[in-house]
């Protein structure tokens, strides 16, 4: 894998990321990858409280990286992955900005799709990030969505039920 093992699987950073470069790095010189799925999450302008001007992402330094690493390890235990990468930004973001990237590589497409969806579902409920939106009426902390609990629960049913 030409040193691919040395690539970080998880990053929590203020800076933006480059999808093309990250995917190229993940694929490396492998000839055994048949499928790569990426998920990019972006800041939407229109939210529950109308048009926002910006968003501030708070996190728990140290614990966040650990949470992402745990979720990545769980995905690697569940699916045969040739590679996996998760990047989550924090700090001040504007509408249209990228927030999160998840990349999964596997021999076959179903494993890559499922692992990427799993990573996003678990990240949503387990990684210690909190969003505060700033709109015309000031700042407002985003409420957690019941739908995110439901989305994550389907993976528990699939593996334990």
């Amino acid at each position, binding site marked *: 894998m030409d040193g691919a093992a040395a690539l970080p699987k998880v990053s929590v950073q203020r800076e933006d990321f480059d999808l093309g470069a990250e995917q190229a790095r993940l694929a490396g010189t492998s000839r055994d990858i048949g499928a790569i799925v990426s998920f990019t999450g972006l800041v939407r302008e229109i939210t529950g409280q109308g048009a926002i001007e910006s968003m501030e992402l708070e996190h*728990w330094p140290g614990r966040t990286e650990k949470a992402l690493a745990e979720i990545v390890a769980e995905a690697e235990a569940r699916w045969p992955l040739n590679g996996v990468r998760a990047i989550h930004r924090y700090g001040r973001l504007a509408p249209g900005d990228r927030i999160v990237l998840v990349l999964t590589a596997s021999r076959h497409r179903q494993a890559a799709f499922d692992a990427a969806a799993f990573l996003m579902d678990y990240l949503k409920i387990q*990684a210690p*990030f909190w969003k505060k939106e700033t709109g015309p009426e000031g700042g407002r902390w985003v409420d957690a969505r019941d739908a995110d609990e439901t989305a994550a629960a389907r993976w528990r049913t699939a593996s334990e039920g």
Partner: protein
Amino acid sequence: MHVLYFAWMRERVGYATEEIDPGAARTARELVETLKTRSEGHAAAFEDLRAVRCAVDEEMGDLDMPIAGAREVAFFPPVTGG
């Protein structure tokens, strides 16, 4: 014992961390009862416990987690990343 607050709980308390003596508190929930008396901000932060999550020494759990011997307890609202 080191106590951490995040997001709107941090804002209501007025700061992100504090050192406290847990006294006789055996669980995070009992610790909350002590913390609530420290200031109006603390009382506001812990006003609705259904919206409060916690972690004892970085282990996520519910308010009934034991805190005996813990170095750190963190309180935060449900996470909203991704």
